């Protein structure tokens, strides 16, 4: 058996059914071995696309995503995808070919030190030096990627090792003395957390990406203790939005009720979150009086940014049911009433007197699709609108680049999500700027006839930057204008063999969405929307989450709660 055959056999043993990749000189031996395998390979049109698709494959299934690329540029093209997976704790194994061992370090054709380059953006990485190490390394890589706090692992394999004859043992024990994730929460800490919750009068729970794998336990917990729940961008889907406890998203573009609850609570039960600056705003004013209970599998997240009074390290699947055992329905009726009042007073609202606006398009998309659909997003204003107006109902169904904020993520992520979940409707909500960053994946979507609605929210500019320029840079709109040179997206889709429509008004938007939702094939809908629409509420960078610019979220005739006077959107 050759090294390449060992790689494929090892991947099969790990239960890999799909690989996203792009071939090339230093990996073609592996592709040759894969030719005889049952593993389905998806030929992406760019390695970055392959990495994002593998990332989304994990996010929507909980199974490790696999990306394959050649040496040099193929490998370096993976880097954004690895960094993205690292930031959002996505389990992924990336395999790259490299130049033959003897040429490493000689600046050979298509050589790059991918092992050195990817250290900071992977959970762990390998440069394999002996063909007989392959079974162990691959086994370790899948173990490391998928356990503890998930993350990407890269394996770099020189070409000569792929060709060389394997003489080792396939059944190896892996030995990682430096890697022992804590799964079981400490009983004493859980008890302390329960005591703190019992003593609290105004508690909230903030649910993050770490909760996606413990959604059932989370629901059971909240049903029992009845605590207000806030879901971060990464936590969307982990808790059903129809529940009365749900307050939406916190932070910079969070809901008024979520941010008010944070600013007024006396306890935060943090569930798999890492207190990102987009969530906390100015740290010193982030719930300064509150007791912080921080449950997370990664001990390094405890007290990294916000001091945890009661840390509980472990898997939420283990912690939440045990915490619930110590508790009954919390005695916090006044607080529940207060929170419900905020929620009622500040519903999502936006103006529709203008031409078509992003927010109504996204609401229409939500109405026309089923509860189990998967949403992927690009990055920018449309992403925030999607988080607020199209939060999905099931865990692992809202796929977005949270930590890294990668424009170009949404379209290839839709490919990964769709292939991982056959028969499930996928909606890719994109901006006209970001969708062009991996637009080549339309070819992959066409080839596999993936039932994806690609909804381009086309405001003709880089909208999030435009909003900041309007609000904080005296309307100096530097280098954000795209409309003069955007392609005709409908024609572009057609050029790839995908049905495409340019849409300018409400009536045709509704019809087009209805039709697309029923069509069960790829459709690109290009919605021309109002250019100067802003995302509100907004917590300006450096301000506390209590200081929101409410903008068009303002309740009718009530101006008392506004801390910053909002500029009326022109």
């Amino acid at each position, binding site marked *: 058996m050759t090294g390449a055959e060992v790689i494929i056999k090892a991947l099969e043993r790990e239960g890999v059914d799909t690989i996203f990749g792009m071939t090339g000189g230093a990996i073609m031996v592996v592709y040759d071995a894969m030719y005889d395998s049952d593993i389905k390979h998806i030929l992406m049109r760019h390695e970055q696309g392959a990495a994002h698709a593998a990332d989304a494959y994990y996010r929507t299934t909980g199974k490790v995503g696999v990306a394959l690329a050649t040496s040099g540029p193929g490998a370096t093209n993976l880097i954004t995808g690895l960094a993205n997976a690292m930031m959002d704790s996505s389990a992924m194994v990336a395999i790259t070919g490299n130049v033959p061992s003897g040429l490493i370090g000689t600046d050979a054709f298509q050589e790059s030190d991918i092992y050195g380059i990817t*250290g900071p953006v992977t959970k762990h990485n390998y440069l394999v030096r002996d063909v007989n190490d392959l079974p162990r390394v691959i086994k370790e890589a899948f173990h490391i990627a998928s356990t503890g706090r998930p993350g990407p692992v890269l394996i770099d394999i020189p070409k000569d090792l792929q060709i060389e004859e394997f003489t080792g043992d396939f059944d190896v024990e892996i030995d990682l003395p430096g890697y022992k994730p804590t799964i079981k929460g400490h009983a004493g800490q859980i008890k302390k957390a329960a005591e703190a919750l019992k003593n609290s009068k105004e508690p909230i729970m903030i649910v993050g990406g770490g909760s996606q794998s413990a959604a059932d336990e989370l629901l059971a917990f909240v049903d029992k203790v009845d605590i207000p729940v806030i879901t971060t961008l990464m936590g969307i889907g982990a808790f059903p939005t129809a529940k009365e406890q749900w307050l939406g998203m916190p932070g910079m573009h969070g809901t008024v009720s979520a941010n008010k609850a944070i600013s007024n609570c006396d306890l935060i039960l943090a569930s798999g979150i890492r207190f990102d600056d987009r969530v906390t705003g100015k740290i010193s004013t982030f719930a300064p009086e509150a007791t912080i209970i921080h449950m997370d599998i990664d001990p*390094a997240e405890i007290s990294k940014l916000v001091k945890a009074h009661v840390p509980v390290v472990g898997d939420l699947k283990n912690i939440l049911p045990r915490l619930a055992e110590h508790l009954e329905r919390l005695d916090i009726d006044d607080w529940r009433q207060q929170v419900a009042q905020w929620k009622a007073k500040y519903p999502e609202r936006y103006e529709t007197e203008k031409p078509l606006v992003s927010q109504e398009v996204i609401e229409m998309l939500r109405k026309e699709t089923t509860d189990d659909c998967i949403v992927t997003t690009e990055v920018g204003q449309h992403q925030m609108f999607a988080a607020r107006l199209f939060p999905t109902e099931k865990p692992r169904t809202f796929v977005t680049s949270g930590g890294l904020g990668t424009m170009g993520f949404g379209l290839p992520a839709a490919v990964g999500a769709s292939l991982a979940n056959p028969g499930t409707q996928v909606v890719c909500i994109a901006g006209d700027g970001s969708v062009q960053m991996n637009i080549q994946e339309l070819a992959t979507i066409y080839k596999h006839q993936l039932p994806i609605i690609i909804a381009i929210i086309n405001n003709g500019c880089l909208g999030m930057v435009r909003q900041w320029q309007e609000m904080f840079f005296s309307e100096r709109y530097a280098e954000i204008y795209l409309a003069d040179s955007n392609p005709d997206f409908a024609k572009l889709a057609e050029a790839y063999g995908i049905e495409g429509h340019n849409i300018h008004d409400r009536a045709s938007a509704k019809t087009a969405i209805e039709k697309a939702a029923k069509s069960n094939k790829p459709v690109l809908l290009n919605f021309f929307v109002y250019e100067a629409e802003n995302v509100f509420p907004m917590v300006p960078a450096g301000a506390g989450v209590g200081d929101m610019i409410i903008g068009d979220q303002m309740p009718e005739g009530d101006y008392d709660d506004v801390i910053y006077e909002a500029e009326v959107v022109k």
Partner: protein
Amino acid sequence: MSIEKHVLSVTVRDKPGVLVRIASLFARRGFNIESLSVAKSNVPGYSKTTFVVSGAEKTIEQVEKQLQKLIDVITVVDHSEAKYVDRELMLLKVTINSSEERTEIRQIASDFRARIVDVHRNALVFEVTGDEGKMEAFIEQMQPFGIVELIRTGRVALTRSAADPKIIRKAKITTKAV
């Protein structure tokens, strides 16, 4: 927040790239290394590194946790949590201009228990071991004669007592398969 020096003993797997991983972690998270030494440990396949890092308590806590997250890092022991001994080694070359100076220098060196490791007509090379204070004092004493060159290893450290269960438990190297 008070800035304190901490001596960390980090046991790592003896594999290529481990030190780069640690150095890059320090660099990208803005941690400051004051000194660093690496050598093989008594357990085959494992190396022991000693770091002296300075920072506020919160920073040091992050340093330790982030180090612990690296797969090839087996244990991290912060010696400020227990009693420890630390030493460093220095080689120092000093010029000699007269036989009086030679006598004086040799006298000082003998007070410091510094060994002569190389002799020239107009220069001597000393080897000194000790803690940081002793190194500084020796340098100060030699300064007036003219130090040509010196090199220091940085600190290495061990806990004093074998009886501290916390440290021993943390430092135990397991080889059990996961």
